[in-house]
């Protein structure tokens, strides 16, 4: 006789990803590599920003590498390779975000102990990446001046789950009539206290502050906000 009964599960829906991410976090900490996840909408300037980051850190003598997520094409990885550091493309074949399993799989063959920093460029998407822990030390949300000032209010989850906000393409601020104050206010409204940087990949603005943040993070002063 069939009799329905209740079974308590009380488990996170993304438990598998969370567990994998925690394993990765442990590996990264053991290897003393600082891992940063870059998120933004498509076209906000992640690749340009990352290219400058990799090139400059490499010149400064840091050992860096990058994993780049895209739905398709290897274009971004090829671009970033110009910086002269190891770059791997993760083609998600339609999946709109990166997951811990993809990171784990694509780290094979890399000696993490040799790295100071590992950058993960997430798929351009302000919605889905927010829920997927990748084991990173910090998540940086990039937002271009060309996107206006409202995005943080429209996409609160991704801003709230980030540790630093980076306003990109700042050299275009005047032309876009970018309301800097409003944007800062909106970012802090959904994520009080988050540090905000303003950068331009093309003009090389703001990178000193970005590297100061990264070095603090590596030295353990910064801490991962609980998502």
């Amino acid at each position, binding site marked *: 006789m*069939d*009799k*329905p*009964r*209740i*079974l*308590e*599960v*009380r*488990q*996170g*829906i*993304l*438990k*598998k990803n969370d567990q994998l991410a925690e394993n990765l976090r442990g590996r990264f900490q053991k290897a003393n590599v600082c891992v940063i996840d870059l998120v933004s909408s498509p076209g906000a300037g992640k690749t340009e920003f990352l290219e400058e980051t990799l090139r400059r850190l490499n010149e400064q003598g840091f050992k860096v590498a990058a994993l780049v997520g895209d739905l398709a094409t290897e274009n971004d990885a090829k671009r970033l390779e110009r910086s002269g550091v190891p770059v791997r493309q993760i083609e998600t074949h339609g*999946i*709109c*975000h990166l997951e811990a399993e993809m990171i784990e799989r694509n780290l094979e063959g890399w000696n993490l102990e040799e790295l100071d920093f590992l950058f993960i460029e997430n798929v351009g998407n302000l*919605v*889905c990446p*927010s*829920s997927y822990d990748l084991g990173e030390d910090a998540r940086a949300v990039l937002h271009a001046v060309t996107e206006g000032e409202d995005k943080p*209010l*429209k996409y*609160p*989850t*991704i801003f*709230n*789950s980030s540790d630093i906000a980076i306003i990109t393409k700042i050299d275009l601020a005047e032309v876009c009539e970018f309301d800097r104050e409003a944007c800062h206010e909106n970012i*802090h*409204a*959904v*994520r*009080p*206290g988050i540090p905000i940087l303003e950068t331009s990949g093309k003009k090389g603005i703001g990178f000193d502050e970005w590297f100061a943040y990264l070095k603090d993070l590596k030295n353990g002063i910064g801490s991962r906000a609980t*998502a």
Partner: protein
Amino acid sequence: MHELSIACSIVETVEENLPTADSRATKVILKIGKMSGVVKDALLFSFDIATQDTRVQGATLEIEELPIIVYCEKCHKNSELGNPPIFRCEHCGELTGNLIQGKEMELVSIEIEDGQTSNS
């Protein structure tokens, strides 16, 4: 958000928790925070698709939506946030990042129907 992917994860977890090969799930109960990024209606729709040809097919999906609640360090009170969620204490106006509820994505329980084992 890609609720189909989430729905597939739910189905996978439910099937893992079914005690026998003959068991079926008739109801799946979730707690989803309003700031989890999951859209309830999209999840309901995706669930129907994700459960097809599984032991969860036909199960009812019940979703309890949890409001976004922050705690204010200044006045020690909780506030429920609206949409968009402005992280400001509704009592004293102080900005607060202290989220105590809102990002949950939890599979709470499942209602199981044990199948009849064949005796042959």
